[in-house]
């Protein structure tokens, strides 16, 4: 029994080692959002020129909505674009875009080349509204429930896996809820 006490430091060391090893698996960019389950911030963004509607907090109530923060200069945004397109065109999800710190002509050009799956796009040229959303890197995507609360946040590009395993089940659940 007295001998065992000398094993204690070793066990502690192994414990700490395992904790650190597991830490390697975590993505340091993945910061928990402070806004989960809170109402989306109050805002109203003017439409991206050439588009009829912008995006405002009032528009996020009623149906389950995805809000996607994107920019033409953002490479991962291009990578996730087919996923957004599928959600909007094939799966019938309302996706509203926040165009983050972009030049208007670049954004319009980008949408022309890659397609425009957004129900409406608000232009956030100085990034001020995005700060209210807690955006720290594009792309980011938020799932908003019918009451206008943020229920899920994806930092970085949406992948088909995230859509199938997390977003679609949540949308189904949120639509059924009320």
């Amino acid at each position, binding site marked *: 029994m007295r001998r065992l006490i000398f094993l204690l430091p070793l066990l502690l060391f192994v414990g700490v080692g395992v904790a650190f090893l597991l830490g390697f698996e975590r993505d340091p960019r993945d910061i928990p959002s*402070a*806004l989960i389950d809170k109402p989306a911030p109050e805002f109203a963004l003017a439409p991206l020129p050439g588009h009829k509607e912008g995006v405002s907090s009032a528009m996020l109530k009623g149906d389950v909505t995805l809000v996607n923060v994107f920019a033409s200069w953002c490479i991962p945004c291009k990578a996730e674009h087919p996923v957004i397109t599928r959600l909007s065109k094939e799966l019938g999800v309302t996706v509203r875009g926040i165009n983050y710190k972009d030049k208007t002509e670049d954004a319009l050009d980008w949408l022309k080349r890659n397609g425009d799956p957004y129900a409406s796009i608000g232009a956030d040229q*100085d*990034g*001020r509204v995005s*700060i209210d959303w*807690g955006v*720290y*890197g594009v792309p980011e995507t938020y799932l908003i429930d019918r009451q206008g609360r943020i229920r899920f946040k994806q930092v970085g590009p949406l992948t088909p896996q995230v859509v199938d395993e997390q977003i679609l089940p949540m949308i189904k659940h949120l639509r059924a809820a009320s």
Partner: protein
Amino acid sequence: MKAVILAAFLALTPLTAFAVQPDEVLPDPTLEGRAREISKDLRCLVCQNQSIDDSNAPLARDLRLLVRERLKAGDSDQQVVHFVTDRYGDYVLLRPPFKATTLVLWIGPFAILAIGAIGTALYLRGRKSAAVAAGGDTAPLTEDERQRLDALLRKEDA
């Protein structure tokens, strides 16, 4: 020589200059001072181990401007920090707050120190009582030991 060293230092200073751009600085030095203090404790979310005061990332600049905007609007330091944590969570604080979820972080090192101290104390006490049980360091010399000691001391004298 001194002049050369001084010149070298002066030439290097711009490299360590602050990320804060001249156009961000508030005209009121008191407010600017508060803004700098607040910024030093706010993490830049893009380059995560820098404060927004140090970082050249565009988002850090936006947040610095936001801090100054809030101060100009008459917010207290605490209100400004709240404004940012409401959006980005406690993660933006380089000095994590003391609360239930961060208890291990704050108490942990002291707890480990205390465990070490208690362990050491127990160990030393155990060794001492073991020594006492074995006769202790005050036990008289045996006849054998006395003779040997005498022999050694005589050798020393001679």
